[in-house]
């Protein structure tokens, strides 16, 4: 495949109109992710309730089409989910684009997120696709009220 095939319609549309592209004023968990190489720079905001359900989610910042659409699809995939399910999805996603070990089962879980699979062939862009996911990981591990910082290099 060539780089062009990466930019499928769904990615282009999420880039243009990212879902949940907002700051949550009442977030319980916030993380800030930067990719110093590209300058991609995003915040992710989670509102997790007492039952550990992600009640609301938002992200904002700036970055390339891959990072932004990946963030957008992330938010719409985990909103309303239990944080352990979100965390599992995150693992599946990272495995999908950083290894050759992704199982069929895992791909089924990922659903439309598998459109990012092709990024695997572009090692430098892998960091774009995983940036918001790494921020999610950090947010889920953080204490309530804390803002964590991550950087992909």
């Amino acid at each position: 495949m060539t780089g062009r095939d990466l930019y499928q319609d769904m990615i282009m549309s999420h880039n243009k109109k990212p879902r949940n592209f907002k700051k949550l004023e009442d977030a319980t968990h916030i993380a800030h992710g930067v990719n110093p190489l590209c300058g991609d720079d995003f915040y992710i905001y989670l509102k997790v309730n007492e039952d550990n359900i992600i009640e609301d989610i938002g992200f904002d910042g700036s970055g390339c089409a891959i990072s932004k659409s990946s963030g957008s699809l992330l938010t719409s995939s985990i909103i309303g989910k239990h944080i352990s399910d979100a965390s599992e999805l995150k693992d599946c996603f990272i495995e999908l684009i950083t290894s050759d070990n992704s199982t069929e089962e895992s791909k089924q879980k990922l659903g439309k997120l598998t459109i990012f699979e092709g990024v695997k062939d572009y090692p430098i862009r892998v960091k774009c696709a995983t940036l918001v996911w790494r921020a999610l990981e950090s947010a889920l591990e953080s204490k309530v009220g804390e803002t964590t910082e991550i950087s992909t290099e």
Partner: protein
Amino acid sequence: MNNESIVKQFPVIEKEGLHYLDSAATCQKPNCVIDAMTNFYKEEYATVHRGIYDLSQKSTIKYNNVRRQIKDFIGAKSEKEVIFTRGATEAINLVANGFAAFISEGDEIVVTETEHHANLLPWQKIAKQKKAKLIVIPILDSGDLILDNIDKIINQNTKIIAIQHVSNVLGTIHPIETIIKKAHSIGAKVLIDACQSVSHIPINVMSLDCDFLCFSGHKCYGPTGIGVLYGKEELLNKMEPYQLGGDMIRTVTFEESTFAELPMKFEAGTPPIVEVIGLGEAINFIKKIGLEKISSIEKELLEYALKEFKKIKTLKVIGDTKNKTGVISFTLENAHPHDIGTLCDSFGVAIRAGHHCSQTTMQHYNVAATARASFACYNTKKDIDKLVEALLYIEEMFE
């Protein structure tokens, strides 16, 4: 443009469907450079300086000849002023490390707003260590230095000015002659980072009268792993050695060691022998074509590209000075530079996207990154046509 005979000498450039426009990052190598190293490894390889057998003596002679060649190429006074390093980064770290002894609290070190990290961070570190001030010469949006305040910026407290000859992001050619004169008028020294000029513009360190100058081999058609530091003999003599080890000593006991004369004093350890041989051949290559010819090819490419870029409505060239080499940074209104980079690649066009190791330049223009196309003597208008085709496609794709 008439550079077919040059193009043919570059095996990577000759590859079908590849349009290499990232020469500001690193140059492709002509066959003569690659072959010189291959043949050296296959026929003549031995250590230098120390072997008394024939192979090593020949190796030493060839090695030393390159030092003479470089002395001539940059117009140094003596071979003692030519130090082989592993690259420009090491050269600058060496100077900063050795020059630190001459810097005290309150002194000022001057850089430009568009320095490469290699010529910023070592000075930032020395400034912190010595409680000196790091002073920045700002730029206009054109990429040209603002020199109105130069008498304030370069003043009695200034000890050294570390300045790029040409910006690797914008291609701006800085008026280093003016700055060197100004610096010397108050007794400050000047280091020229010539990474982006040495294979594009003729340079003569004696007529420039700069105190230090450095460049990397891999950006001037030579191999990786080699660079050059020029320094005035008198200054280099005053500076402490940088790395310590074999070949740079005179006598060693456990109590005390004494060091060799220039240039060996700054060349600890087994040098990058074969890389030096390759660099010599790269200098030959440049001399054979001639820097005037190289620079006229690149100028023509630059003008053509700037003209063609007008066809792309949402494209913005960053830094529109007239006084520049074949380096163009640009953005598209709706596409992020990294997307531009990946999509250009799908057209076979290799351009660079990112901060180009100069985050302060990005900060000036308030962008996270730019896309950059840069030219060398092996590029043709076809490369630019393909780039424009790709950019038009990308522009449409991102509307």
